[in-house]
């Protein structure tokens, strides 16, 4: 019987929560993606927490939060320890995405769900594969072959093909059939008749316009705002769709010789582009061709400045500019801060290029009509100064002392223990003790930090310094909107000065890479100040679909083309999922499943198969006909057995006559062309093909949609005449008779 296959969504089913699915193939448990939303809420990962230690392999498909965000957390806290498979760009850009995310979070909160070290260690063991590389799994997964294939959407984006015993399970989420400026379209359509296809219903209800027109609308919208003296904020992801936007803008700016500055602002923007420059072989054919011919690398962006902190941006003042800043959700990161600054000016535009994740600020702003004002928390990490710094240092000192005291105490104990009778037995104990001490040392360092810098400014018990100024922001309204307190701005200026100092002192470090940035961040004692405020949304808001996913119509036609035996739908609003499910169930007799979160469905194929050997004698008598890349023949044989192996021999008695089979797929339009070439008068009339004066050929039943339902039905009709037999002869010539 077939390979047993079960699918359990852990997140991202009947909803737009992050993608994370469990796929068991003959007991080998794959985790397909490991996403987290920008909100980073550990409670979202509960289903994953239950199964994480049992996972045998993790397959990542795209380098963004929704597909791999939870990986560091799961590795650190949930006991996920399986090898991870991804393409090189997914690995590299995913790593940068996580860095950026951490740094953005860390700047505004005491983020401790994972650290940069956790990110590093999570990505350390990623096995990097090339597209179409067949990777054989070992040990428990013996016999399973996994292969990443081009998915489009994001650089390195992957459609995973998992093969066992000739049966394919295909995991294809967020694919894009369209070729883009920097990416090739997916090769998903080249897979035919997989046993199982797992795909998303995310875009089932959306349809897109033409790409070129879309691009044009996009730059038009930007230019309109820029021309009227406003600035544009594009909240983007760290290293995903932003690449496409950068290319479109860079190219357009180059063509038109536009002078408005474009800034790409993330914590890792320089590294991102550096790496992307070296990923040409993963991009669009025309890009690699361009490079081969002229050594032109499109990511040597000529009109975009890459910046990694806001100060550079602020130097520019209010001049019209385009800023692409992470994160797309506006929850944290530079985009959040810039949004707060820009929202108040009607000239400005905030242009969303992707649908905001559920429950984020971006999503709130994307509703129609947009809200007039939103409440946001403005937080900032500032270095400790004056008394606070002293207090912190004292605290550190105290901790250190305590540590050394403890250490000495332990040492004494150790000494005592070693002097004790059963020294040998206690030895490992003490080693354990001291090492755990060490690690807790590091932990307490951080813990102390948390103690001091708790959110909401409860003065820590140990603190001797006065409380940091806290602004009670009760929004006062008059006829012109919120009453603005100029003092707020004064304070902000001050804060900025601090960070400027801080920034300029370590400007070089910041420029280079995350490694040094991390050192910097870890070493300087700092704290977070938060400020809740209401932001008036006066700027214009717009949404344009640059998500780079196939739209509803294409998804349907791709599914119809791939024609899986079983289809599993995930990730999409309940509405979209139901819609696609109904659509697929109606048009084909394939089995469609749309499991709920934590619902396990069994999609084991009911395919029966056995292997036989074909004897030379038999094969020499078979004359097969060539049909495209197939060769096909009718086989009459008899089974023989040879040491447990089945072998097919020529039949001993004449075989019974069989019903003949016509093989081929006729398109009426092609047939029309064919007949016309033969000199016939042919025309379409009422869905039928009228050949000559009397003969009609037509199709009955929409058999194309009917997956395995059977064969094409053609009718040829006409009065008894010579033409009839001629047309019939020509019609037969389009098929192979077996």
């Amino acid at each position, binding site marked *: 019987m077939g390979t047993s296959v079960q699918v359990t969504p852990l997140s991202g089913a009947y909803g737009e929560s992050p993608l994370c699915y469990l796929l068991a193939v003959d007991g080998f448990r794959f985790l397909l993606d490991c996403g987290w939303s920008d909100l980073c809420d550990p409670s979202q990962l509960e289903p994953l927490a239950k199964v994480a230690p049992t996972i045998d392999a993790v397959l990542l498909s795209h380098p963004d939060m929704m597909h791999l965000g939870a990986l560091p957390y799961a590795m650190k806290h949930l006991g996920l320890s399986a090898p991870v498979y991804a393409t090189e760009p997914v690995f590299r850009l995913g790593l940068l995405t996580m860095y950026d995310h951490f740094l953005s979070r860390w700047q505004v909160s005491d983020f401790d769900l994972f650290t940069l070290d956790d990110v590093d260690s999570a990505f350390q063991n990623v096995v990097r594969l*090339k597209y*179409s*590389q067949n990777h*054989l799994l070992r040990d428990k997964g013996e016999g399973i072959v996994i*292969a990443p294939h081009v998915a489009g959407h994001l650089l390195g984006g992957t459609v995973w093909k998992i093969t066992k015993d*000739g049966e394919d399970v295909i995991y294809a989420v967020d694919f894009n059939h369209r070729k883009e400026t920097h990416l090739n379209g997916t090769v998903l359509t080249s897979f*035919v*008749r997989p046993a199982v296809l797992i795909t998303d219903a995310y875009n089932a209800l959306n349809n897109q316009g033409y790409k070129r027109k879309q691009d044009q609308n996009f730059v038009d919208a930007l230019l309109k705002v820029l021309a009227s003296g406003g600035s544009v904020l594009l909240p983007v992801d760290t290293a995903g769709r932003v690449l496409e936007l950068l290319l479109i803008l860079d190219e357009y700016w180059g063509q038109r010789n536009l002078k408005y500055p474009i800034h790409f602002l993330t914590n890792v923007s320089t590294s991102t582009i*550096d790496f992307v*420059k*070296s*990923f*040409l*072989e993963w991009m669009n054919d025309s890009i690699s061709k361009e490079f*081969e011919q002229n*050594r032109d690398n499109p990511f040597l962006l000529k009109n975009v400045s890459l910046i990694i902190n806001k100060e550079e941006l602020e130097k520019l003042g209010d001049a019209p500019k385009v800023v692409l800043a992470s994160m797309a959700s506006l929850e944290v990161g530079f985009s959040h801060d810039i949004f707060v600054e820009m929202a108040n000016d009607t000239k400005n535009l905030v242009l969303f290029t992707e649908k905001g994740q559920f429950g984020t600020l971006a999503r709130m702003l994307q509703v129609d009509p947009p809200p007039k004002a939103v409440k946001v928390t403005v937080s900032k990490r500032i270095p400790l100064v004056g008394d606070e710094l002293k207090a912190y240092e004292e605290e550190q000192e105290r901790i250190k002392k305590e540590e050394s005291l403890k250490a000495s105490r332990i040492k004494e104990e150790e000494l005592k223990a070693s002097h004790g009778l059963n020294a040998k037995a206690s030895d490992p104990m003490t080693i354990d003790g001291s090492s755990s001490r060490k690690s807790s040392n590091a932990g307490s360092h951080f813990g102390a930090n948390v103690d001091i810098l708790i959110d909401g400014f409860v003065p820590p018990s140990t603190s001797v310094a006065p409380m940091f100024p806290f602004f009670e922001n009760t929004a006062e309204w008059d006829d012109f909107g919120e009453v603005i307190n100029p003092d707020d701005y004064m304070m902000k200026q001050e804060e900025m000065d601090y960070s400027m100092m801080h920034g300029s002192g370590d400007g070089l470090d910041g420029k280079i890479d995350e490694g040094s940035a991390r050192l910097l961040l870890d070493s300087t004692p700092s704290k977070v100040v938060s400020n809740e405020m209401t932001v008036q949304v006066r700027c214009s808001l717009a949404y344009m679909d640059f998500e780079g996913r196939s739209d509803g119509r294409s998804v349907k036609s791709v599914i119809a083309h791939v024609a899986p035996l079983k289809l599993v739908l995930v990730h999409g609003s309940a509405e979209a999922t139901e819609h696609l499910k109904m659509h697929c169930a109606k048009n084909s007799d394939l089995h469609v499943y749309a499991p709920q979160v934590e619902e396990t469905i069994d999609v084991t194929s009911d395919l*029966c*198969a*056995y*292997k*036989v050997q*074909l004897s030379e004698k038999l094969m020499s008598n078979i004359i097969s006909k060539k*049909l*495209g*890349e*197939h060769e*096909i*023949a*009718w*086989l009459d044989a*008899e*089974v*023989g057995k040879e040491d447990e192996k089945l072998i097919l021999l020529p*039949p*001993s008695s004449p075989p019974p006559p069989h*019903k*003949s*089979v*016509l093989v*081929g*797929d006729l398109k009426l339009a092609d047939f029309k062309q064919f007949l016309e070439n033969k000199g016939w008068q042919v025309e379409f009339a009422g869905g039928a093909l009228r050949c000559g004066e009397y003969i009609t050929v037509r199709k009955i039943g929409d*058999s194309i949609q009917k*997956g*395995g*339902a*059977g*064969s*094409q*039905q*053609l*009718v*040829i*009709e*006409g*009065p*008894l005449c010579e033409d*009839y037999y001629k047309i*019939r002869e020509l019609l*037969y010539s389009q098929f192979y008779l*077996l």
Partner: protein
Amino acid sequence: MRARNGLLTRISKSNVPGPNGRPNSHHLNVTRLSQAGQASSLSPVSTLRNKQAERQTDMASVAAASKRPATGGREGDQMVITPLGAGNEVGRSCVHMTFKGRTVLFDCGIHPAYSGMAALPYFDEIDPSTIDVLLVTHFHLDHAASLPYFLEKTTFKGRVFMTHATKAIYKLLLQDYVKVSKVSVDDMLYDEQDILRSLDKIEVIDFHQTMEVNGIRFWCYTAGHVLGAAMFMVDIAGVRILYTGDYSREEDRHLRAAETPQFSPDICIIESTYGIQQHQPRVVREKRFTEVVHSTVAQGGRVLIPAFALGRAQELLLILDEYWSNHPELHKIPIYYASPLAKKCMAVYQTYINSMNDRIKNQYAQSNPFHFKHIESLNSIDNFHDVGPSVVMASPGGLQSGLSRQLFDKWCTDKKNSCVIPGYVVEGTLAKTIINEPREVTLANGLTAPLHMQVHYISFSAHADFPQTSTFLDELRPPNIILVHGEANEMSRLKQRLISQFDGTNAKVVSPKNCQSVEMYFSSEKMAKTIGRLAEQVPEASEPVNGLIVRKGFTYQIMAPEDLRVYTQLSTANIIQRIAVPYSGSFEVIRYRLKQIYESVESAPEECDVPALVVHERVTVRLDSESYVTLQWSSDPISDMVSDSVVAVILNISREGPKVVPVEEAAKTKEETERVAQKVVYALMASLFGDVKVGEEGKFIISVDGVVAHLDGHSGDVECENATLRERIKTAFRRIQGAVRPIPLSAS
């Protein structure tokens, strides 16, 4: 056609053994290497065939001979591997392989020592149009430089693959080659346009990416040799062939070491450049190199490094740049690389970081290691201010001409200066000469000068040496080893060593010369997978299996016709035919006539309102209107035949008309029948006896020669005096009755 002629002339030229480097091969004997059968299912037998003998006998039929005749039962299992170049030589790598009707060509190089047509591999031995796939391992001239010729000037129409980095450098390198090579216009193999056109035909393949063309599956592994160098593994019907190209198993500063493939190949075509030599360890070489450079510049001397622009040059630059970074005291001493080509290719090196080793990748996370901090490029000697110590890397590597020679001439007399020769040098060049440190050298202007400059030969050549080759083969354990790409001597030594190393195993080592074919037989058993409804039960012995057998590539599947759509991209069709035949008679007639002809004529199930018949459960005949009947059936040879005969029957009925319709007779009343019978009897009687008169109540009065007889037409009683006549009339009547009413209507 011009190209073809060109090839033919080249053969006749080249057949003359002589200076153009063609092997003098007339005295080769046909050798047959008999091999013991193997334990595995594959049983290869190798033979070396002497193609040259054929060639000598019939020059005109070269093209024909090259298409190997498809005869013999085992033809399908025969694998033929023929080096068209690089057989017992270094240069013009090109290996032709054919198996199961699929043909693969590995590499397409030129011989750097020859020019024009003579530098090409023996393309006339093969039919380029039969090649399915051409795989190019790396960008070096001896592996890729005849590609524009082969793509643009022969009948080749297959697909070409190389890695991304190879393709990017291939273009630059060949453009440079075309510019530099000083051959007459007639002798030019191709021009720049050909190179550009060839680029469009070249497809790229990434390492480990599996491609399939026409049933040939192939993928490539890192080979180490230069950036983008690949080893190709080809899988045809389960038989695997590994072609290493040039490879190195030693990781260096920027390249990964050659990988060991996951699967053992059945045949390994392997380079043997260094034969049984052994390299110094990398650390030692690097140390020697940097020491020489450092001590020379410290003494105020100049260092000349003649090197080919691409490949090892980048490695040396990395070493120097790193060394300079670690030695701040050297920062004021400039390092130059004087090659516009290398400068152009630097962008490629800066981009395809992912083909390099982890060391470079990690450095890349900080800053691009190919953005050198201490090295500048130099366009020509005019821009070079030769004051004080410096390090210059210049091409060509052989000091034949160009910048490296100019600098050499300038610097060779000063004993403070050094020349470091970093790689394999070709016999006959100045570089080869100075390795032996002669007292005097001849300058480019013809004068002789004393050689005081120190000369160091430190090989950074990234070819495998014997220990590498030996361990590589030991890990792979290929049953068949074919040596290419090595001087005849080195190769034969390597062959002997390998034979003794693999003594006792089944491994065979062969080293064919150019155009000598190695033939092997792989009779792999064909396996098929029965799937779908046919496979619901595994059959017992001697049970029949009937179904479609579908072959795609080299895999077979057996399935029921209904399942064809389910498991393949093919679909089945059903053609329903409906034909209208003019007919205006009674439908019963058709039924009657059909019943006379066919065994099975049934009335159609009464779903329709018009009378219908089903003949042999295939063809439905319906009386659709007064004027025609329709026939409907689904196409199939037998149904077509049945329907044709039905049509014929119907047409016959309409043509013969009602007079032959017996059913109409049956419709007449008995009286009428009686009357007709009477008439017939009368007519017949009259013809027999002449004077016959019809009497009353069906009586006949017959008078013969005055004798009168009365015949009762009903009972047959005859009243007559003449007994003879009476008997005769009785007999006649009986016979007439027999004719008119064959069977008595009843017992009455």
